[in-house]
């Protein structure tokens, strides 16, 4: 009888301990959930300047709208955000020639993600000696330029070519219409 009481007490103690631990874990998880969004958004960090641009190939109808963001992070860095609409049959697509002071770090685009398993196959990185560029176009299985809408986010970092000359010139082309977009480095 005495042993039965001991076992019973041990069981009760065990249940209390397990329940207490479970409650503590639950309370801690709830506390962490409450803390999840205590985030101070950093706005315009190191942002020096921006430049908007719009261009359209009046013949094919291909058009592009975009914004250049210039950052001062040790060296200069640039982010290019573009939305584009490539006309069907326009083999030129979208082209961007980078200033020699920059090289491509990354590009993400959703252009025709439904056509290819790898949407990145529609992006061609052009390396030509000291200059580099990006081409975005899409062909189907019969090498026909299918056209369509898309967006892209392009990140550029400094190349080994130094200097700014007060700004940087980017050559953008929508179809066969090209324009130079300059982003100025503001004076301190």
């Amino acid at each position, binding site marked *: 009888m005495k042993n039965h009481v001991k076992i019973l007490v041990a069981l009760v103690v065990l249940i209390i301990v397990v329940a207490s631990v479970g409650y503590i874990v639950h309370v801690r998880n709830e506390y962490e959930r409450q803390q999840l969004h205590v985030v101070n958004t950093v706005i315009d960090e190191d942002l020096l300047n921006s430049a908007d641009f719009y261009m359209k190939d009046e013949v094919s109808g291909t058009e592009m709208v975009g914004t250049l963001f210039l950052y001062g992070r040790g060296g200069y860095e640039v982010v290019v*955000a573009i939305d584009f609409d490539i006309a069907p049959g326009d083999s030129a697509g979208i082209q961007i020639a980078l200033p020699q002071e920059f090289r491509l770090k990354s590009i993400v*685009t959703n252009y025709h993600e439904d056509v290819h398993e790898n949407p990145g196959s529609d992006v061609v990185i052009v390396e030509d000696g000291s200059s580099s560029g990006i081409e975005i176009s899409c062909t189907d299985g019969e090498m026909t330029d299918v056209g369509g809408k898309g*967006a892209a986010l392009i990140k550029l970092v400094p190349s080994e070519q130094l200097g700014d000359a007060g700004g940087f010139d980017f050559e953008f082309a929508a179809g066969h219409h090209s324009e130079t977009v300059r982003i100025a480095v503001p004076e301190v």
Partner: protein
Amino acid sequence: MRIGVKQTCAVVIGALILVLIAALVCLDDGDDDGSDRPLVNEDYLSSGSFDIKDEHTGSWIHGTLFFYDMGDHLDATAIVRFRIESGDPAAILYTNTMAFSVPFMDVAYPEDYEGNRVQCDNIAHELVGTRIYIYGYGEGTAIIELQSTRLLERGADQVTFRAGAGDEFHDFTFDLPEWGS
């Protein structure tokens, strides 16, 4: 007893070899990160877009969200173009849940406007989520970096955002392919 010592030694040596291999693999990855090779659609998962126009005020926004599979969570980048005609704040993006927070955002807004142009609240205590407002007049572009929290279930197949321009507000639900595996 002697066999036990031998077995222990074998296990320790095996573990050391595994640690060495893991360290070499990590070093290789580090070299890749520092290389000049451009990354094309790295970690890209899917995208979604939204358009809103308030016919009364003429204000509008157009946005594209890129989602990235980071394994244990989702990152997202929103490119949002907007035009504010009314002078009222444009609520360019917010989440009704606490599934995403906004660590960074940049706004290109060339129009002159006195005062605070951007307000981003990552609200914790009211459990209503993150809200981003742009004040002023004219056209601009915002790049918004989002990061999912633990409240977005790993492998979730949908995410919902709300966006607004003028008096027009809409919810947008985006389907996600399999992620987090």
